[in-house]
């Protein structure tokens, strides 16, 4: 009984402390950060649109144009990561650099470069997926789960 009371008192104390720390901790200016994310993220997407458009003008269908778009953006991001420029863009733009496909490529390239000293297999090989691995796993898994639902609906004739 006494122990239980002590436990509750401790939890309460911890909660109060967490609230107090939150109050004491400064945060970034959200509006400013959102503006920076908006500008940089928007610019990256605009660049993507230029590639999409160019590919379509050159006769590619929608899917092929999309692939070219990813390919070129990823290439640019990997080069900028190697030259230590992408981290600076990321520091400035936050989500603006994280959310586009270039952010995904940055996470792969940064891991590959950082862990090369630990060897080809256990360094680059394993750790290249440190940040990107979960994205691939849960992307594949969620689309699979949705696919299962779709397949069932298809069999039941609910959808076409």
């Amino acid at each position: 009984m006494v122990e239980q009371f002590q436990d509750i008192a401790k939890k309460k104390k911890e909660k109060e402390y967490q609230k107090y720390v939150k109050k004491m901790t400064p945060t970034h200016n959200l509006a400013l950060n959102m503006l920076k994310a908006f500008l940089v993220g928007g610019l990256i997407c605009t660049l993507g649109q230029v590639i999409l458009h160019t590919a379509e003008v050159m006769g590619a269908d929608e899917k092929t144009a999309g692939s070219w778009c990813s390919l070129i953006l990823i290439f640019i991001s990997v080069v900028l990561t190697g030259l230590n420029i992408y981290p600076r863009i990321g520091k400035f733009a936050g989500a603006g650099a994280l959310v586009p496909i270039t952010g995904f490529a940055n996470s792969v390239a940064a891991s590959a470069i950082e862990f090369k000293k630990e060897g080809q297999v256990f360094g680059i090989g394993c750790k290249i997926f440190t940040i990107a691995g979960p994205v691939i796993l849960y992307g594949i898994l969620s689309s699979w789960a949705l696919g299962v639902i779709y397949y069932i609906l298809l069999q039941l004739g609910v959808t076409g």
Partner: protein
Amino acid sequence: MEYVRAFLVGGIICALVQILLDRTKLMPGRVMVLLVCSGAVLSAVGLYRPLFDFAGAGASVPLLGFGHLLWNGMKEAIQENGILGLFMGGFTACATGVSASLIFSYLASLIFNPKMKE
């Protein structure tokens, strides 16, 4: 005009995600996972296609678009191959993006060395 729409939609998605980064304790890795999964769901319920038609790269370049891509590949594969398609669609759809990231990054690791942050 299509550039303006891509800029606005892409920018708005990024700005909204910035709220998640600044106001929650979510680490970037979790945010990326969240985006791809939500993209797949939004696409499956038919909400992402209209956005893509409106904004083009503004909808396909953010990681949400990666989820959209995965779902499209999955749907096509199921239509063509049934149950087997469930295990083909995902990787087929993201083949370019994932391969390019891995291959370019590996090559980058041969050329570049780790650098100090400033």
